[in-house]
Protein backbone atom coordinates (compact mmCIF):
# COMPACT_ATOMS: atom_id res chain seq x y z
CA UNK A 1 0.00 0.00 0.00
CA UNK A 2 1.23 3.50 -0.81
CA UNK A 3 2.18 5.20 2.45
CA UNK A 4 3.14 8.39 0.63
CA UNK A 5 0.26 10.66 -0.35
CA UNK A 6 -0.18 10.98 -4.11
CA UNK A 7 -1.78 14.40 -3.93
CA UNK A 8 -1.45 17.41 -1.67
CA UNK A 9 -4.61 18.00 0.34
CA UNK A 10 -6.02 21.53 0.24
CA UNK A 11 -4.57 24.06 2.63
CA UNK A 12 -7.70 24.25 4.73
CA UNK A 13 -8.45 23.57 8.37
CA UNK A 14 -12.22 23.55 8.61
CA UNK A 15 -12.31 20.66 11.07
CA UNK A 16 -14.30 18.60 8.57
CA UNK A 17 -12.10 15.62 7.65
CA UNK A 18 -13.78 15.21 4.26
CA UNK A 19 -13.53 18.87 3.27
CA UNK A 20 -9.90 19.07 4.49
CA UNK A 21 -8.90 15.87 2.67
CA UNK A 22 -7.90 15.51 -0.97
CA UNK A 23 -11.61 15.32 -1.78
CA UNK A 24 -11.68 19.03 -1.04
CA UNK A 25 -9.64 19.60 -4.21
CA UNK A 26 -12.74 18.89 -6.30
CA UNK A 27 -15.44 21.30 -5.06
CA UNK A 28 -17.81 20.22 -7.83
CA UNK A 29 -18.13 16.77 -6.26
CA UNK A 30 -17.49 17.78 -2.66
CA UNK A 31 -20.77 19.71 -2.62
CA UNK A 32 -22.54 16.39 -3.22
CA UNK A 33 -20.29 14.18 -1.07
CA UNK A 34 -20.96 16.13 2.11
CA UNK A 35 -24.79 15.95 2.10
CA UNK A 36 -24.66 12.34 0.90
CA UNK A 37 -22.41 11.39 3.80
CA UNK A 38 -24.78 13.00 6.30
CA UNK A 39 -27.80 11.42 4.64
CA UNK A 40 -26.28 7.94 4.69
CA UNK A 41 -26.12 8.15 8.49
CA UNK A 42 -29.28 10.08 9.21
CA UNK A 43 -31.84 9.78 6.43
CA UNK A 44 -32.35 6.03 6.16
CA UNK A 45 -34.19 3.43 8.24
CA UNK A 46 -31.15 1.45 9.46
CA UNK A 47 -29.67 2.32 12.86
CA UNK A 48 -26.21 3.84 13.11
CA UNK A 49 -24.99 0.62 14.75
CA UNK A 50 -26.22 -1.38 11.75
CA UNK A 51 -24.60 1.04 9.30
CA UNK A 52 -21.33 0.77 11.22
CA UNK A 53 -21.38 -3.03 10.95
CA UNK A 54 -21.50 -2.82 7.16
CA UNK A 55 -18.97 0.02 7.04
CA UNK A 56 -16.43 -1.88 9.13
CA UNK A 57 -16.94 -5.10 7.17
CA UNK A 58 -16.15 -3.17 3.99
CA UNK A 59 -13.15 -1.43 5.60
CA UNK A 60 -11.69 -4.79 6.47
CA UNK A 61 -12.15 -6.04 2.89
CA UNK A 62 -10.69 -2.95 1.22
CA UNK A 63 -7.82 -2.70 3.69
CA UNK A 64 -8.43 0.96 4.49
CA UNK A 65 -6.43 1.54 7.68
CA UNK A 66 -8.17 4.81 8.47
CA UNK A 67 -11.65 3.33 7.92
CA UNK A 68 -10.82 0.34 10.13
CA UNK A 69 -9.56 2.55 12.98
CA UNK A 70 -12.54 4.89 13.04
CA UNK A 71 -15.60 4.35 15.21
CA UNK A 72 -18.51 6.71 14.74
CA UNK A 73 -19.84 7.98 18.05
CA UNK A 74 -23.47 7.71 16.97
CA UNK A 75 -22.98 3.99 16.28
CA UNK A 76 -21.57 3.45 19.74
CA UNK A 77 -24.47 5.41 21.22
CA UNK A 78 -26.81 3.17 19.19
CA UNK A 79 -25.36 0.08 20.86
CA UNK A 80 -22.41 -1.09 18.78
CA UNK A 81 -19.91 -2.43 21.32
CA UNK A 82 -16.25 -3.15 20.66
CA UNK A 83 -16.99 -6.80 21.42
CA UNK A 84 -19.35 -6.83 18.44
CA UNK A 85 -16.81 -5.05 16.25
CA UNK A 86 -14.34 -7.83 16.98
CA UNK A 87 -16.86 -10.33 15.58
CA UNK A 88 -16.82 -8.69 12.15
CA UNK A 89 -14.37 -11.25 10.87
CA UNK A 90 -14.58 -14.20 8.53
CA UNK A 91 -16.08 -16.38 11.27
CA UNK A 92 -19.02 -14.05 11.86
CA UNK A 93 -21.58 -16.72 10.94
CA UNK A 94 -20.65 -18.73 14.04
CA UNK A 95 -20.39 -15.66 16.29
CA UNK A 96 -22.94 -14.41 18.82
CA UNK A 97 -24.04 -11.61 16.53
CA UNK A 98 -27.81 -11.58 16.06
CA UNK A 99 -29.31 -13.13 12.90
CA UNK A 100 -30.10 -9.61 11.64
CA UNK A 101 -26.51 -8.47 12.17
CA UNK A 102 -25.20 -11.55 10.40
CA UNK A 103 -27.47 -10.85 7.45
CA UNK A 104 -26.07 -7.31 7.21
CA UNK A 105 -22.57 -8.76 6.94
CA UNK A 106 -23.68 -11.44 4.46
CA UNK A 107 -25.31 -8.81 2.25
CA UNK A 108 -22.15 -6.68 2.45
CA UNK A 109 -20.07 -9.68 1.41
CA UNK A 110 -22.40 -10.34 -1.52
CA UNK A 111 -21.77 -6.79 -2.76
CA UNK A 112 -18.03 -6.98 -2.20
CA UNK A 113 -17.20 -10.48 -3.39
CA UNK A 114 -19.91 -11.47 -5.83
CA UNK A 115 -22.11 -8.58 -6.93
CA UNK A 116 -25.08 -10.55 -8.23
CA UNK A 117 -28.58 -11.53 -7.14
CA UNK A 118 -28.24 -13.49 -3.87
CA UNK A 119 -29.13 -17.16 -3.90
CA UNK A 120 -32.69 -18.10 -2.92
CA UNK A 121 -31.81 -18.92 0.68
CA UNK A 122 -30.06 -15.62 1.38
CA UNK A 123 -32.68 -13.64 -0.54
CA UNK A 124 -35.52 -15.17 1.47
CA UNK A 125 -33.76 -14.46 4.75
CA UNK A 126 -33.08 -10.86 3.72
CA UNK A 127 -36.67 -10.28 2.60
CA UNK A 128 -38.02 -11.81 5.81
CA UNK A 129 -35.82 -9.69 8.07
CA UNK A 130 -35.65 -6.32 6.31
CA UNK A 131 -38.14 -3.96 4.72
CA UNK A 132 -37.61 -2.83 1.12
CA UNK A 133 -36.38 0.55 2.33
CA UNK A 134 -33.95 -1.09 4.77
CA UNK A 135 -32.47 -3.24 1.98
CA UNK A 136 -32.20 -0.24 -0.28
CA UNK A 137 -30.54 1.77 2.49
CA UNK A 138 -28.11 -1.07 3.16
CA UNK A 139 -27.27 -1.26 -0.55
CA UNK A 140 -26.43 2.42 -0.71
CA UNK A 141 -24.50 2.27 2.58
CA UNK A 142 -22.22 -0.44 1.22
CA UNK A 143 -21.83 1.23 -2.18
CA UNK A 144 -21.00 4.57 -0.57
CA UNK A 145 -18.45 3.28 1.92
CA UNK A 146 -16.85 0.93 -0.58
CA UNK A 147 -16.29 3.74 -3.07
CA UNK A 148 -15.12 6.12 -0.36
CA UNK A 149 -12.66 3.68 1.23
CA UNK A 150 -11.19 2.65 -2.12
CA UNK A 151 -10.72 6.32 -2.92
CA UNK A 152 -8.85 6.81 0.37
CA UNK A 153 -6.59 3.84 -0.34
CA UNK A 154 -5.94 4.81 -3.97
CA UNK A 155 -4.87 8.33 -3.05
CA UNK A 156 -2.08 6.96 -0.85
CA UNK A 157 -0.76 8.40 2.38
CA UNK A 158 -2.24 5.57 4.43
CA UNK A 159 -0.17 4.59 7.50
CA UNK A 160 0.47 0.92 8.26
CA UNK A 161 -1.74 1.13 11.31
CA UNK A 162 -3.69 3.59 13.41
CA UNK A 163 -5.15 3.43 16.92
CA UNK A 164 -8.90 3.21 17.37
CA UNK A 165 -10.39 6.69 17.12
CA UNK A 166 -13.91 7.82 17.88
CA UNK A 167 -15.27 10.59 15.68
CA UNK A 168 -18.55 12.27 14.85
CA UNK A 169 -20.17 12.28 11.43
CA UNK A 170 -18.65 15.25 9.53
CA UNK A 171 -21.25 17.91 8.77
Amino acid at each position, binding site marked *: MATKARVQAPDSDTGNPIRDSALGL*VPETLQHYLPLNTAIWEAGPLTAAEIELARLRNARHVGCVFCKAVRYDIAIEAGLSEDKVQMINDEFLSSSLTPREKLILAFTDQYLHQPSVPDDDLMQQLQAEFTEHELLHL*SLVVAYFNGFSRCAVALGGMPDELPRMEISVPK
Partner: protein
Amino acid sequence: MAWITAGNDRETIMRSLPGIGDHFAQLYQSFWELPHIPAGILELCRLRLAQLHNSHTDWELEQYPLDPEKKANLRQWSKHAAFTDAERACLALTEVHAMDAQAITDEQADAVKAHFGEVGLVALIQALGVFDGMIRLGLLWGLSAPEGEG
Protein backbone atom coordinates in the same frame (compact mmCIF):
# COMPACT_ATOMS: atom_id res chain seq x y z
CA MET B 1 -37.94 -6.22 -12.04
CA ALA B 2 -35.44 -6.03 -9.21
CA TRP B 3 -35.88 -8.37 -6.25
CA ILE B 4 -35.09 -5.69 -3.73
CA THR B 5 -37.97 -3.34 -4.48
CA ALA B 6 -40.29 -2.33 -7.32
CA GLY B 7 -38.47 -0.80 -10.26
CA ASN B 8 -36.72 -1.78 -13.44
CA ASP B 9 -33.81 0.62 -13.44
CA ARG B 10 -31.32 2.05 -10.96
CA GLU B 11 -32.68 5.58 -11.10
CA THR B 12 -36.23 4.52 -10.26
CA ILE B 13 -35.07 2.30 -7.43
CA MET B 14 -32.78 4.95 -5.96
CA ARG B 15 -35.55 7.54 -6.08
CA SER B 16 -37.62 5.24 -3.87
CA LEU B 17 -35.32 6.12 -0.97
CA PRO B 18 -35.52 9.92 -1.07
CA GLY B 19 -33.01 11.80 0.99
CA ILE B 20 -30.20 9.38 0.10
CA GLY B 21 -30.82 8.12 -3.42
CA ASP B 22 -31.17 11.64 -4.79
CA HIS B 23 -27.83 12.71 -3.29
CA PHE B 24 -26.23 9.60 -4.77
CA ALA B 25 -27.67 10.41 -8.19
CA GLN B 26 -26.50 14.03 -7.96
CA LEU B 27 -22.96 12.94 -7.09
CA TYR B 28 -22.95 10.54 -10.05
CA GLN B 29 -24.21 13.25 -12.39
CA SER B 30 -21.59 15.76 -11.23
CA PHE B 31 -18.73 13.73 -12.72
CA TRP B 32 -19.97 14.34 -16.27
CA GLU B 33 -19.60 18.07 -15.92
CA LEU B 34 -16.14 18.30 -14.34
CA PRO B 35 -13.54 20.69 -15.81
CA HIS B 36 -10.67 18.55 -14.49
CA ILE B 37 -11.02 15.45 -16.64
CA PRO B 38 -12.87 14.96 -19.96
CA ALA B 39 -16.24 13.24 -19.79
CA GLY B 40 -15.23 11.12 -22.78
CA ILE B 41 -12.36 9.59 -20.80
CA LEU B 42 -14.64 8.96 -17.82
CA GLU B 43 -17.05 7.20 -20.17
CA LEU B 44 -14.26 4.95 -21.45
CA CYS B 45 -13.36 4.09 -17.86
CA ARG B 46 -17.00 3.43 -16.93
CA LEU B 47 -17.40 1.14 -19.92
CA ARG B 48 -14.18 -0.69 -19.07
CA LEU B 49 -15.58 -1.31 -15.58
CA ALA B 50 -18.77 -2.62 -17.18
CA GLN B 51 -16.64 -5.06 -19.21
CA LEU B 52 -14.69 -6.18 -16.17
CA HIS B 53 -17.90 -6.75 -14.21
CA ASN B 54 -19.54 -8.39 -17.24
CA SER B 55 -22.49 -6.04 -16.93
CA HIS B 56 -24.35 -6.02 -20.24
CA THR B 57 -26.75 -3.29 -19.12
CA ASP B 58 -23.96 -0.89 -18.17
CA TRP B 59 -22.09 -1.70 -21.38
CA GLU B 60 -25.17 -0.78 -23.42
CA LEU B 61 -25.78 2.43 -21.48
CA GLU B 62 -24.43 5.56 -23.18
CA GLN B 63 -23.62 8.16 -20.58
CA TYR B 64 -21.52 10.27 -22.96
CA PRO B 65 -21.12 9.95 -26.75
CA LEU B 66 -17.92 8.18 -27.81
CA ASP B 67 -16.04 7.46 -31.00
CA PRO B 68 -17.53 4.05 -31.97
CA GLU B 69 -14.05 2.78 -32.85
CA LYS B 70 -12.91 3.32 -29.28
CA LYS B 71 -15.88 1.51 -27.81
CA ALA B 72 -15.46 -1.38 -30.24
CA ASN B 73 -11.77 -1.75 -29.36
CA LEU B 74 -11.91 -1.01 -25.65
CA ARG B 75 -10.59 -4.43 -24.67
CA GLN B 76 -7.46 -3.65 -26.71
CA TRP B 77 -6.97 -0.15 -25.30
CA SER B 78 -3.32 -0.73 -24.43
CA LYS B 79 -2.33 -1.49 -28.04
CA HIS B 80 -4.98 -0.03 -30.33
CA ALA B 81 -4.01 3.16 -32.17
CA ALA B 82 -7.36 4.83 -31.49
CA PHE B 83 -6.44 5.49 -27.86
CA THR B 84 -4.39 8.45 -26.67
CA ASP B 85 -1.71 8.34 -23.98
CA ALA B 86 -4.04 10.18 -21.60
CA GLU B 87 -6.78 7.60 -22.16
CA ARG B 88 -4.34 4.76 -21.66
CA ALA B 89 -3.10 6.24 -18.40
CA CYS B 90 -6.66 6.47 -17.06
CA LEU B 91 -7.67 3.01 -18.28
CA ALA B 92 -4.57 1.43 -16.73
CA LEU B 93 -5.47 2.94 -13.37
CA THR B 94 -9.10 1.90 -13.84
CA GLU B 95 -8.22 -1.75 -14.28
CA VAL B 96 -6.08 -1.93 -11.15
CA HIS B 97 -8.60 0.09 -9.12
CA ALA B 98 -11.29 -2.41 -10.13
CA MET B 99 -9.29 -5.34 -8.79
CA ASP B 100 -7.54 -3.90 -5.73
CA ALA B 101 -7.11 -0.20 -4.96
CA GLN B 102 -4.12 -1.07 -2.79
CA ALA B 103 -2.30 -2.38 -5.87
CA ILE B 104 -2.25 0.97 -7.70
CA THR B 105 1.36 2.01 -8.19
CA ASP B 106 2.87 5.47 -7.89
CA GLU B 107 3.81 5.21 -11.58
CA GLN B 108 0.19 4.63 -12.58
CA ALA B 109 -0.96 7.58 -10.48
CA ASP B 110 1.83 9.78 -11.84
CA ALA B 111 0.85 8.91 -15.40
CA VAL B 112 -2.66 10.27 -14.80
CA LYS B 113 -1.27 13.35 -13.04
CA ALA B 114 1.02 14.03 -16.02
CA HIS B 115 -2.10 14.66 -18.11
CA PHE B 116 -4.66 15.98 -15.65
CA GLY B 117 -2.78 17.09 -12.55
CA GLU B 118 -3.49 16.16 -8.95
CA VAL B 119 -7.08 17.39 -9.15
CA GLY B 120 -7.67 15.23 -12.20
CA LEU B 121 -6.32 12.20 -10.38
CA VAL B 122 -8.64 12.81 -7.42
CA ALA B 123 -11.60 13.32 -9.74
CA LEU B 124 -10.85 10.12 -11.64
CA ILE B 125 -10.46 8.04 -8.49
CA GLN B 126 -13.68 9.46 -7.06
CA ALA B 127 -15.49 8.71 -10.30
CA LEU B 128 -14.21 5.14 -10.44
CA GLY B 129 -15.54 4.47 -6.94
CA VAL B 130 -18.99 5.76 -7.84
CA PHE B 131 -19.12 4.11 -11.28
CA ASP B 132 -18.05 0.79 -9.79
CA GLY B 133 -20.70 1.19 -7.11
CA MET B 134 -23.45 1.86 -9.65
CA ILE B 135 -22.47 -1.22 -11.65
CA ARG B 136 -22.30 -3.44 -8.57
CA LEU B 137 -25.72 -2.21 -7.39
CA GLY B 138 -27.24 -3.04 -10.77
CA LEU B 139 -25.82 -6.55 -10.63
CA LEU B 140 -26.79 -7.06 -6.98
CA TRP B 141 -30.34 -5.89 -7.58
CA GLY B 142 -30.66 -8.04 -10.69
CA LEU B 143 -30.91 -5.17 -13.17
CA SER B 144 -27.82 -6.06 -15.20
CA ALA B 145 -27.87 -9.35 -17.00
CA PRO B 146 -24.31 -10.69 -17.24
CA GLU B 147 -24.52 -11.83 -20.83
CA GLY B 148 -23.13 -11.07 -24.28
CA GLU B 149 -20.75 -8.17 -24.82
CA GLY B 150 -19.52 -6.46 -21.73
